[in-house]
């Protein structure tokens, strides 16, 4: 196993600068997920690690070797592709054995490894079949199996679950996590699905526009997003943003928007006072809003009109309008409201986020 180090990695295509100055260290045995919307450069980054794409500038190290100039086959990596990319003319066994045969492993060793991998993945009975005779989930397993028989230093996954239906995806996600615990391998995983990123990653790398926006453990990225993009991208439904103006009144700071006046918690005041009289973006996650009784938590609640009610069973999503802003609230299923009714929503003061509207950077708690 090995650690992967990216130093100032850049990739320019004819007209686009797909990856901009990405520097990242992936520790030995770590499972790192690159996540971002399509076109953010995550797949290109992965393909550069694999050697399928040449880096325009910057360095890639796997273990203690600089691998920039090595072809994919010499990088000691295994990759699972989005389309699985199984060899259609070979049986499942041959698909899995292919990489080992190419590396001139003795036949016995190949057979042992393929059987072991097949057992781990529960595909022993499929070894004689051709890929076209397999279901999507089975193909997925074979693709993973083909990677693990190789015992590579690094596993690369390129959106491996995105072609599966929702139920199977959840199941495979759990299996991948279990597999990683078992193999203890360094893994780089690319997805556009933030749920996958949060659940699988030891660390999550949020990318946007070719740049790394934030690197951190899932809950850290969720709890303290560094900028507005990360805040909006991680979490579903995504964070609500309110364009407010900071005003001072009777020694306290308020974030004001038409129809809403929210007190800035004392511990945030110090940093935010610099914004007095200026606009600031307030962010609050739907799950941090709850319905409140009449004069609960004054200053930290506001009145809104319900527009859409989406009962999900374990919770209810409310699309509400407060002043001229649309917000989503995730409330308890016991909440009884109908569209067009008024509701009072309160939020936990320590859970709100502030962003500078110009730089879109988060305004930190303290300096």
């Amino acid at each position, binding site marked *: 196993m090995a650690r992967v180090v990216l130093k100032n990695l850049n990739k320019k295509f004819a007209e686009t600068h797909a990856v901009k100055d990405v520097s990242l260290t992936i520790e030995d045995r770590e499972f790192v997920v690159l996540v971002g919307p399509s076109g953010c450069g995550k797949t290109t980054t992965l393909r550069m690690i694999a050697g399928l794409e040449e880096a325009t500038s910057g360095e890639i190290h796997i273990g203690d070797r600089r691998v920039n100039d090595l*072809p994919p*086959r010499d990088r000691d*990596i295994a990759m699972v592709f989005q389309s699985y*990319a199984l060899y259609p003319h070979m049986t499942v066994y041959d698909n899995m054995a292919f*990489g080992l045969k190419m590396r001139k492993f003795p036949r016995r060793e190949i057979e042992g490894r393929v059987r072991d991998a097949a057992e781990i993945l529960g595909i022993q009975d499929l070894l004689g079949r051709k890929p076209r005779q397999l279901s999507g989930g089975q193909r997925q397993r074979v693709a993973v199996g083909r990677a693990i028989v190789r015992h590579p230093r690094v596993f690369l996954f390129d959106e491996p679950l995105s072609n599966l239906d929702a139920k199977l995806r959840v199941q495979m996600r759990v299996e991948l996590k279990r597999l990683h615990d078992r193999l203890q391998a360094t893994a780089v995983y690319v997805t556009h699905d933030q749920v996958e990123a949060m659940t699988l990653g030891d660390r999550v790398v949020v990318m946007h526009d070719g740049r790394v926006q934030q690197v951190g453990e899932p809950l850290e990225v969720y709890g303290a997003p560094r900028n507005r993009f990360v805040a909006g991208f991680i979490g579903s439904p995504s964070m609500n943003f309110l364009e407010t103006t900071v005003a001072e009144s009777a020694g306290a700071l308020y974030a004001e928007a038409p129809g809403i006046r929210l007190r800035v918690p004392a511990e945030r005041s110090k940093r935010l006072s610099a914004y007095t009289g200026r606009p600031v973006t307030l962010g609050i996650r739907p799950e941090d809003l709850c319905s409140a009784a009449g004069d609960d938590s004054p200053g930290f609640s506001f009145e809104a009109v319900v527009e859409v009610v989406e009962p999900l069973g374990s919770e209810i999503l409310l699309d509400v309008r407060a002043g001229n802003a649309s917000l989503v609230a995730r409330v308890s299923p016991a909440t009884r409201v109908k569209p067009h009714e008024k509701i009072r929503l309160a939020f936990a003061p320590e859970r709100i986020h502030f962003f500078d509207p110009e730089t879109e950077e988060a305004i930190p708690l303290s300096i």
Partner: protein
Amino acid sequence: MRRSGPFRLAGAAVHRAVVLLFAAFAVFPFYWMVVTAFKQNSDLYVGAMNTAHNPFIFNQAPTLDHVKYLFTETPYPTWLFNTLSVGLIVVAVTLALAVPAGYSLARLSGRWGERLGIGVFLTYLVPSTLLFIPFSRLISILGLQNTTWALVLVYPTFTVPFCTWLLMGFFKSLPAEIEESAMVDGCSRLGATVRVILPLSVPGLLTAVIFSLTLVFQEFVYSLTFISSVEKMTVSVGVPVALIRGDVYYWGSLMAACLVTSVPLAVVYNLFLDRFIGGITGGAVKG
């Protein structure tokens, strides 16, 4: 909206009728060829005024005379051999050039790949009636006049561009991820192409082979221009030269020659019909 019963029935009837019409249209020449090849001369050549005579069927017992004449009294076996040997060499040359060219064009992404591909295809469209004059000069400079090597040299000028274009479309339809996967698994690019892409390209390769063979079998202008000795001719030129004497057409033997030449191709074509169509449309429609 679903159409009601009688309309649907009428639609199906029209559909059948049209299919039948086209089938008859396609089969008729072949049928005429078979009937003519095995008719006795007295059944073939009757006065135009004889309206009682039905030309579409055997009025007298079929005969093998024309086929015998073809194989014993003309150098037809030699022509067949010439055609086949030229055909096989041309197929080999075509594949050797068109496979790497088609693959490169397919994987050369961006506008240039497309432009080059179209450019290659355009060269195929230049008619042989225009090209045979410069070619004959070239052939004489190379000292290849009146040899089948002249044809081996010239035929690839139209088989290679077409097959390159055809294979390019086919390779494009194969996902690049499959060969990338092979490259990660331990192949070089060449290795990935040989071990993974070529086995998957069999329908496309077959299409290229059948197409090249058909072109060689039917080519007339170059063969007529470059070959003058009867024993070096190919079927397409030898047969009309030997069996049309002045204004006398040896129809029976002519048709027998066509039959013998076209049946193997037709059989091969039909055996691989599905794959052949897969080869042609594989390029047209992106998977």
